[in-house]
């Protein structure tokens, strides 16, 4: 039988090829160039999320508003009126809505990103493109949603200014930076969860109720100032806590932020980001074999 043998001794240099596939084990191989080349895919995925989300709905994008409005009303009634939780002197609806839209953005980034590998299994099993595009598209399309919700928030804010609530200071201009960090934190945690769920499906269940419970471990329905000083660290362990307090401080001038706590949040977000990209890169190469 004529068994074909290629010229085995002639190991070619990788530079000769446009695509060079090896059993690559390098830890940190973030190919930003590839992500940039696929930027059109990113924008089309964002568009897909937007267009498909409201197909066959009557209210369409109005759902962006309905959800935070009703949550704000419920929180105002339950936590504000019934439980009488103080809000640092900020009007209750404003206080809750600020928390809700930031928390929603974080939890949507986390939850949707954590499903990356599972929901795209069919696609990932057939074609290669930088997998990071998919979680990035999730973060981006949720960012657009957040933008829309911020308009609602601003409208509410203007209403309260007319009611005599003070104008936001110059510090409020740093709010995009806070949102960026919230996004990175949600993305990183989501990437880690999605990478680990390909092998250990238990995490899927953990994340479902974990995120719900985590909201109560963050200062969303209560201000951090409500917590006794010697127990504040328990809430501040959660890296998002300082971002939420900072967001309120920037906008309303009220909030409990220390340099140490904020520094801790920023550093842990960056560490998680690097860690998540390392794990994600490792998993994206072999996940189709284990999923």
């Amino acid at each position, binding site marked *: *039988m*004529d*068994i*074909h*043998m*290629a*010229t*085995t001794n002639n*190991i*070619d240099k*990788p530079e*000769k*090829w*446009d*695509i*060079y*596939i*090896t*059993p*690559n084990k390098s830890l940190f191989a973030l190919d930003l160039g590839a992500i940039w*080349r*696929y930027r*059109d*895919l990113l*924008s*089309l*995925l964002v*568009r*897909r999320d937007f*267009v*498909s989300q409201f*197909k*066959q709905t009557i209210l369409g994008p109005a759902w962006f508003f309905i959800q935070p409005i009703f949550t704000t009303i419920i929180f105002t009634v339950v936590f504000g009126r019934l439980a009488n939780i103080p809000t640092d002197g900020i009007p209750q609806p404003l206080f809750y809505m600020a928390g809700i839209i930031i928390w929603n953005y974080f939890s949507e980034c986390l939850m949707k990103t954590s499903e990356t590998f599972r929901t795209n299994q*069919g*696609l*990932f*099993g*057939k*074609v*290669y*493109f930088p997998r990071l595009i998919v979680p990035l598209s999730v973060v981006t399309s949720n960012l657009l949603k957040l933008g829309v919700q911020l308009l609602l928030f601003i409208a509410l804010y203007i209403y309260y200014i007319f009611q005599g609530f003070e104008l936001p200071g110059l510090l409020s201009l740093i709010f995009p930076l806070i949102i960026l960090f919230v996004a990175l934190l949600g993305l990183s945690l989501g990437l880690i969860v999605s990478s680990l769920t390909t*092998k*250990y*499906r238990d995490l899927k269940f953990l994340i479902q109720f974990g995120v719900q419970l985590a909201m109560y471990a963050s200062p969303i329905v209560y201000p951090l100032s409500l917590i006794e000083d010697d127990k504040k660290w328990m809430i501040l362990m959660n890296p998002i806590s300082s971002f939420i307090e900072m967001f309120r401080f920037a906008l309303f001038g009220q909030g409990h932020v220390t340099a140490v706590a904020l520094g801790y949040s920023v550093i842990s977000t960056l560490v998680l980001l690097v860690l998540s990209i390392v794990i994600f890169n490792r998993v994206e*190469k*072999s996940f*189709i*074999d*284990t999923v």
Partner: protein
Amino acid sequence: MKDIVLKIEDVSKQYRLGEVGTGTLSHDLNRWWHLARGKDDPYTSVGAVNDRSLKANEDYVWALQDINLDVCQGEVIGIVGKNGAGKSTLLKLLSQVTNPTTGYIGIKGRIASLLEVGTGFHPELTGRDNIFLNGSILGMTKGEIRSKLEQIVDFAGVAKYIDTPVKRYSSGMKVRLGFAVAAHLEPEILVVDEVLAVGDAEFQRKAIGKMQDVAKGEGRTVLFVSHNMSSVRNLCNKGVLLENGRISYVGDVDETIDHYLQGGSAQKVHFVEFDDMPLPIQFKKIALAQIVEFSEDVEITMDIKVNESNPDYTLGFIVFDSKANCVAVSTYDEYGLKLIDQNHLGEIQINATFQKKLLKPGTYSIRFTARTINGEAIHTVEDTIFFDVRDTHTYRGLKGMYRPRAIIAPEVQWKKLN
């Protein structure tokens, strides 16, 4: 010498057998512990040869082993092999969906694999949106897609439905659209995996024509995986036979198909066996030749098992050609025969022979049914049995004079009358 556009060197791929996901934590820890001490991965040294029929004693299996292959520009390569021989694994490695365990692959230019039906399509989006989405998944930019949009729509033949959500499309339309996008990507290497089985005859012709254009006209390379020997023969100029994860033959496409059909162990007759089932009547074994000479009868032997004596039971088969056209149907009762005599239980052996010099050379699949004479199916053996008709004796066969449009090839006596 032509340019080598794809080089596969010493590539192997190992998979874990059994249930992935349970007990892997201990393996992961063990592996990590070994690697952390600078030792070899304890699991890459073990691993059985990939042979489905042997009971595996190892936890790991080599889906591909020591694959070496050079592909030159413009070659159209048919990759054939039994189920589980490693064809899809090889394509997965080429499309970078998963990484090899050892070895390397070098590719020049872009490589695009044809998506399976509907993969990457979002059902709620329109055809147009999906062309853009699918194209960009394959690596095209929006500008490139826009410039080819008209051609793609034209080729897929879905102009009327282009603004309709894809969920309203028939499955054939989805395949056509998917193929059209990938074919217009103009990749240097196009990978096609068993996709043509879904479309209708007209589309299959179009798709094969397009692939031939891509290969011959534009000098691109095509890797084609199929169980359909007649499309492989039509399209490819080189063949690769995979057996148990290894390349067992590379060469001329006809030679490769011969090797494949004859099987590594020179087994010419194809047997399909079935376990006992709780059915009143069932097939136990079906045997027919894998390669039938045009000038020989087609002989099929069926062992059936009768558990319930019912004079209404009969059996039959349907022959399909490679384009899924039904070529012939025959049942036991159509000749007025009773399959089961009174109180006849147990195993019966049946032989069915049909006429030579009728089926045109090509690949046929055959479906067997045990059923009642009223047409109620009891045991159906779906199209898993194939045979190949060859003509290596007649003038027509030797000269390759069979007309592509003809469905059958009866022997016609031509005579001058004056």
